[in-house]
């Protein structure tokens, strides 16, 4: 049975039209995997010695256990944003004699092979080996390692649930926020009790059964969750909701791009996936809190300020913008044959992103608390976002030909994840450029020069708006037929 599934999947992968195009990106991803895998092994190998040297009084294993909770939270977060969940076209499988359970076992089993599970393995395996070599008791180390692997798999299955079920997502998210807030305001530090738990796992190795049971339990919950969705009306057809029409005629003042803007607003508010992405872009607003609360960043790593400022106002741009033509993939043929010049379509997307940057900038006013300089750099970042980043985004995504299913929420069989690593790779230049523009004048002249350079680059971009849009239009026109073909490919 599994052999059949594997061959189906291999065919889907090989025969999709964006496979060829993405080969360069796949190589990059492969290199990234090698890189991060290598780093994990390296850190795992030297962790013991590093800790021993820095904290000679504390046993490295105790130190690791104390801070393990942060690793777990970090892993959960990274997975939430990056891990691709297994997708399977189950409709054709429903009427042929395959046991539903075996489909589900396969689907869940597949997630066990995710790269993210291997990071933990590559990190803790060398560490455990070092421990054994250093003469730590064999039973304890092996069972501790086993417990950690069970925890990793538990995170894996938990992430699956978080992605598929809004209830679980909100529950976990609020729990994490409460924990972080309690620690931040010095009310209660969860690190110590949790550290004790992990230390307990090490000193009483038979307790490894608990993580194992948790893992099995989560597997079972996932299994039931998917089992429940294994019906046509559960997984494939959606619930019919009554429409609540909103009056958007006030947007008519935007002239010829108004119909598109109105349509995009409806697209965002009425579909699960864009809604999720826009929600996420709202969180980007708080990104500055990481940077501006730490004196270190302001004084020692000022080049990161340009970077942070881009994020604060550019959340929508980065998350929504990088999937631009894909949002319209379901009805792309209509757009291409209707009375719409390509140029107007692109311009409307540009306006949408500019609008979002302006809204984010207004919402970022509280950053004045950190001083006028900080606020000015956010303003300069906003200008850069409007004047350059919008065009870079539109240009970069002209190669993006992955169709999106708009309304797939809480659906066990399709990918609801807003981000994927490929898009993050494409996004890299957008983040590096502002750092360079800000840092060079900052380094050679002063802070204000960096500020002005960043702002000016945005203004120049706006002056050349028509030029940029024309160039981008040409790129889109060139790829038009390929894009149509790729978008009409059914998943």
């Amino acid at each position: 049975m599994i052999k059949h599934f594997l061959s189906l999947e291999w065919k889907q992968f090989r025969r999709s039209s964006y496979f060829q195009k993405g080969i360069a990106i796949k190589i990059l991803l492969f290199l990234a995997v090698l890189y991060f895998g290598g780093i994990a092994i390296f850190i795992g190998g030297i962790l013991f010695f590093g800790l021993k040297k820095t904290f000679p009084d504390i046993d490295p294993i105790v130190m690791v256990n104390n801070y393990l909770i942060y690793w777990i939270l970090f892993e959960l977060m990274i997975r939430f944003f990056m891990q691709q969940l297994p997708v399977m076209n189950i409709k054709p499988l429903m009427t042929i004699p395959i046991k539903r359970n075996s489909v589900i076992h396969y689907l869940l089993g597949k997630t066990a092979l995710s790269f993210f599970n291997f990071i933990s393995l590559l990190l803790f395996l060398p560490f455990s080996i070092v421990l054994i070599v250093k003469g730590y008791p064999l039973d304890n180390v092996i069972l501790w390692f086993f417990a950690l692997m069970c925890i990793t798999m538990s995170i894996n299955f938990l992430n699956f649930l978080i992605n598929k079920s809004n209830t679980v997502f909100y529950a976990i998210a609020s729990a994490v926020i409460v924990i972080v807030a309690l620690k931040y305001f010095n009310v209660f530090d969860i690190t110590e009790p949790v550290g004790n738990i992990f230390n307990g796992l090490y000193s009483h190795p038979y307790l490894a059964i608990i993580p194992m049971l948790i893992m099995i339990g989560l597997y079972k919950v996932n299994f039931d969750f998917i089992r429940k969705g294994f019906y046509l009306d559960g997984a494939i057809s959606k619930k019919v909701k009554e429409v609540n029409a909103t009056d958007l005629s006030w947007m008519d003042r935007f002239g010829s791009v108004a119909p598109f803007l109105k349509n995009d607003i409806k697209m965002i508010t009425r579909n699960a996936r864009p809604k999720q992405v826009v929600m996420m872009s709202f969180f980007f607003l708080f990104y500055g809190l990481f940077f501006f609360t730490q004196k270190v960043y302001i004084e020692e790593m000022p080049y990161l300020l340009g970077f942070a400022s881009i994020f604060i106002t550019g959340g929508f741009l980065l998350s929504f913008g990088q999937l631009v033509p894909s949002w319209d993939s379901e009805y792309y043929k209509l757009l291409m044959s209707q009375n719409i010049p390509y140029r107007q379509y692109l311009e409307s997307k540009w306006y949408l992103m500019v609008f979002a940057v302006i809204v984010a900038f207004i919402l970022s006013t509280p950053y004045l608390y950190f001083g006028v300089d900080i606020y000015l750099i956010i303003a300069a970042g906003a200008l850069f976002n409007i004047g350059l980043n919008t065009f870079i985004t539109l240009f970069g995504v002209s190669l993006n030909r992955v169709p999106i299913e708009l309304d797939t929420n809480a659906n066990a069989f399709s990918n609801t994840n807003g981000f994927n690593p490929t898009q993050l790779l494409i996004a890299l230049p957008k983040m590096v450029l502002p750092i360079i523009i800000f840092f060079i004048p900052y380094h050679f002249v002063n802070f204000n020069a960096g500020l002005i350079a960043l702002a000016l680059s945005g203004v120049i971009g706006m002056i050349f708006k028509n030029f940029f849009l024309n160039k981008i239009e040409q790129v889109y026109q060139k790829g038009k037929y390929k894009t149509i073909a790729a978008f009409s490919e059914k998943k």
Partner: protein
Amino acid sequence: MITSSNLTKTYNGVTVLNIDNLDIPKGQSFGLVGNNGAGKTTYFSLLLDLIQPTTGHIKNKNILVNESEDWKPFTSSFIDESFLIGYLTAEEYFYFIGELRGQNKSDVDALVLQFEDFFHDEILGKKKYLRDLSKGNQKKAGIVAALIGNPEVIILDEPFANLDPTTQIRLKEIIKNLAKKQGVTVLISSHDLMHVTDVCERIVVLEKGEIVKDLATSEATLKELEQHFAG
């Protein structure tokens, strides 16, 4: 109105469409029939510049469709569900298309009102997104949307498929009316020989991408077509 010359489309060495010359005059109701894979949808896609011709070109009112976008204002079409925007209600969709074609709300309302009968009370005022409608009702909405904005050329791929008998009969009236009274050039494709002979003044039979028959519709046409397809 529409001229195709030396038009071919080849996929990986297989020619799926090969039309030396095809002229469709203004105001003609033109029917395209042929078995699966005959090239009907390929031809319509070329006409709408959704795919690129391997050789040759199509001129729509003397505009080269693969080089200029100027044919778009007077050409409208409904090929398949990917022409619908699933998260809009039927009304919103009509208004959206109307705005693209320079029609205001009341223009669209007036036009849509004429098709109340056609909709059979299943589309308007239902507060349902298009994606939640049945295939047949989606098709109705798509076809009517293609009539918005006084297009001079209307292209409908398989308009009769998926429709219930009542609607099929009404649709035939609508199409006839468009060509005869309003001088609109209507291009349809169909597997239903009866419907297509009822509606179209001219019928072209495609076989493996080539034109094998080009008939002016008469009493004898249906028989001739049936014989042809019976093999």
